[in-house]
């Protein structure tokens, strides 16, 4: 595997970012637009870690996840969605480099765990950022959250649930990657 960034690797990251964006558009215009934000946590908590873990496993190079996140957010910028830029601008380097770092750390000795842990870390960081924003500046829909949910017990429980969901999604990404890893196309990308 070449150490540097090849054109094929960069274009592949772009292609997966496009795929993630297109799936996001479908969810946004169908599920989220009709149900408000009820399913947004669930859908973004599953789709987000799946693709980022897949990119990280496929490219297996430090910075791949960060580039992927940057591209997804730029693509999303041209859509009238609320989520993309503000929170993610701070999160792109943190999330991307964390996922890449965890993947590279676990890739050699604990390959089987890599997908789960990367997905877990991704969602945990997402959740922590949301909690920090919630308590520092307040979210636009914060008043609509039932008051019993704003307690340490519930915040921790929701954080664990969302992180485990991310872990499961990351594990699924690893299963898909393992299925594709022996194909000629993946070998060609990793060359």
């Amino acid at each position, binding site marked *: 595997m070449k150490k540097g960034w*090849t054109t094929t690797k960069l274009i592949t990251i772009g292609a997966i970012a496009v795929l993630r964006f297109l799936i996001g558009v479908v969810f946004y215009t169908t599920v989220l637009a009709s149900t408000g934000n009820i399913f947004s946590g669930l859908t973004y908590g599953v789709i987000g870690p799946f693709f980022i873990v897949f990119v990280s496993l496929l490219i297996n190079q430090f910075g791949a996840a960060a580039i992927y996140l940057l591209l997804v957010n730029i693509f999303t910028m041209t859509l009238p969605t609320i989520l993309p830029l503000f929170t993610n601008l701070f999160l792109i380097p943190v999330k991307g480099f964390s996922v890449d770092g965890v993947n590279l750390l676990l890739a050699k000795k604990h390959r089987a765990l890599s997908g789960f842990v990367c997905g877990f870390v991704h969602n945990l960081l997402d959740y922590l950022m949301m909690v920090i924003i919630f308590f520092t500046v307040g979210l636009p829909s914060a008043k609509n959250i039932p008051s019993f949910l704003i307690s340490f017990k519930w915040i921790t429980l929701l954080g664990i649930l969302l992180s485990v969901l991310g872990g499961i999604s990351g594990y699924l990404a690893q299963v898909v990657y393992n299925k594709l890893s022996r194909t000629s196309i*993946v070998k060609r*990308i990793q060359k």
Partner: protein
Amino acid sequence: MIGNLFVQKKSIIHDLDFWTKFVCFLLFLPLSAFLASPKVLLVLLGFLVLLLFLSYIGLIKFWQSAKLYLIPLSIGIIVLSLLFSSGNFETRFLEGLILVIRFTVLISFGILFAMTTNPIEIPGGFLRAHLPHKFGITLMVGYRMMPLISNKITTVINAQKARGANTGFSLKNPGQFFYFASSLIVPIIHSTLETSVRLSDTLISRGYDPEGKITVPETKFSLFDYLIFSFALAITLLGFLIH
């Protein structure tokens, strides 16, 4: 999707530099989401209308793009506010209404940005900011890939349907839908990877080198760039002061 949103026109707003539009959009995002008080929100709304008139897009065309997002979201927010907010009916409805205005302003700025910014301006803007061109090129190719990958997804779905897959979602048997969705993942990802390799081969064959030098377009800020940016900055400062 992006091609549908962008409206090709000759106007002051269309001619603004990418970075002016982008920074103004970034300033207005947190402002309309949670920083601005209701009074500043009205100022923002006025500024939005002014920008809309200057862009020559037309209210009807703008509404046609916006209604898909605004109508369901507004109904959802009002219902959630009535269900979960505290106080009497009037207070809960008013809270919901303010939230609706916030989201309307927020989404409208997003739509205006998308309608006045040609997607090709984005990688160009990044190149001018002296970010490594390999990322700009990736972005440019990404935009080119959107219709290709979208077609691939449709082809895979149609192929699965032709094999007798049940695509409908039923509450009685939700597992069936997830089984169908899972049967799409591997072929869709595989065809996406194939598309990316083909496109990168084309780039390589034309001599593109991610580490090589590239000509960067010149940056030119006009008087309107400075003027609109100053207005945006003033509104942001006002939002912070009154908040």
